[in-house]
């Protein structure tokens, strides 16, 4: 009986952890993931590896995900960084829209740095 009860508790705790979505480290990792996605999209487009229509659509999705995550964020030190990532993703969309590959490359490099900073913050937040 005690083993079964322990197993049920483990499952319930895991369900809470998965369901409540309040883990700030997980949220920061998700933000870092979308920032890194934007960076990769910008780099690939600036190297003529992806079409513009796809790049714009994917950047739009990344910007929406970052914006949503910023609104839900409770880790105060991360807020300026996330706002910067959101603005940089907008800047990247504009560069792709204007067919400016050099500008896109520069923004993508900044976004890659921001993504690494978010990942570091997530690690620190978890520990």
């Amino acid at each position, binding site marked *: 009986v005690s083993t079964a009860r322990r197993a049920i508790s483990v499952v319930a705790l895991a369900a809470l952890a998965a369901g409540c979505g309040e883990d700030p480290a997980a949220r920061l990792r998700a933000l870092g993931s979308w920032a890194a*996605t934007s960076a990769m999209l910008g780099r690939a487009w600036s190297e003529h*590896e992806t079409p513009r229509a*796809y790049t714009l659509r994917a950047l739009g999705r990344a910007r929406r995900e970052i914006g949503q995550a910023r609104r839900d964020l409770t880790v105060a030190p991360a807020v300026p960084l996330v706002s910067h990532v959101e603005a940089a993703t907008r800047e990247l969309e504009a560069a792709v829209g204007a067919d400016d590959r050099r500008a896109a490359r520069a923004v993508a490099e900044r976004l890659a740095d921001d993504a690494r900073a978010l990942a570091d913050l997530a690690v620190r937040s978890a520990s």
Partner: protein
Amino acid sequence: VSQVLELALGIVTAFGGFLEAGSIATSAQAGSEFRYALLWVLALGTLCLVFLVEMSGRLAAVSHHTIAAATRERFGFTFFMLPLTGMVLVSLFTLVAEVGGICIALQLATGISLQWWALPVIGVIWALLWRGNFSFIENGVSMLGLVTVVFIVAAFRQQPRLGEVAAGLVPSLPRHDGARFWFLAVSILGATLTPYLFYFYSSGAVEDGWDEGALGTNRAVATAGMGFGALLAAAVLVVSAGVFGPRGIRIESYDQLALLLTDQLGRWGFALFVASLAIACLGAALEITLALAYMVAQGFGWNWGESVRPRDAARFSATYTVALAVAAVPVALGLDPLRVTNVAMVLNAAALPLAVLPFLVLMNDRDYVGDHANGWFGNVVVLGVTVVACVLALVSLPLELAGG
């Protein structure tokens, strides 16, 4: 010479037809989040799949029964309705995922939203089924599927450390995100062990008129075809671990997945990924639609056969027409294809016992397979993996849905 050619064709088509939306998506997600740590799950699922496919062909060759027809005959119609209902629901879900995969590939290629592609795609699949025959479906699309070899090329170009890749084949427990690890593990099992695959294989064997002389070919096709096919899924996982893992990208959308090959193949990478996704999903959608119609027609005792003219198997043709129409609706409504794919793969795993347990009874019944009954090892592997996959699916699906 013709036997060697037949064998080679069988292996090549099994290899070319292995990948589909589920195996591409789940392997890429596993690689991006857990590097090579879930390779052992893919290996375990493949071992089980080799046994199941070989059994399907053996049942057809020895008894001249498909799985559905033999299950109905052996257990009675009332019992048969249980696996039939389960298989139809799960296969419909999987069909939505595959149609979604084709539509997302077209969206990636053209920029036109996937919803707009749902009806044209369904129309093309329906026309291919209506006008084509079994050989065309089995061989033609699978040959096109050889484009997915590009994932192996990319994996080689990436030059991963072989020791680390090999270590992933050793079963291990998660070091972080346990709920997500097991959800992806069961997704991989569901993507590898899709029940429609062995129902389709046994129906194809009956359509091709296999007899006991085909048992050697069957064994070779099941082992080599599925084994090499699993290498494609492993290559997707390895490439994803190298491309997305170090960047910290967790795959939540096909938009992210479309960048999988650009690091290794440059401007060709995007086009080849889109082509691979479209062709792999088209092949799977054709097979699932046919498998659905096979199951229903064989279960109800109707005329059936992809090589039979539609007017001579009207209810069979009507079944796949309805299945396609139903599958178009969620895609046309814009459901997230990656989310549908993940859920469909877990449902496949959850429904495995419905498909596998009666099948195992048949494969140990000498009235059907005579001296070619299963050995103990095959029974243990298939039963063990089926039970584990089902339990994991029933625990992890609610967790993942709750977690969003």
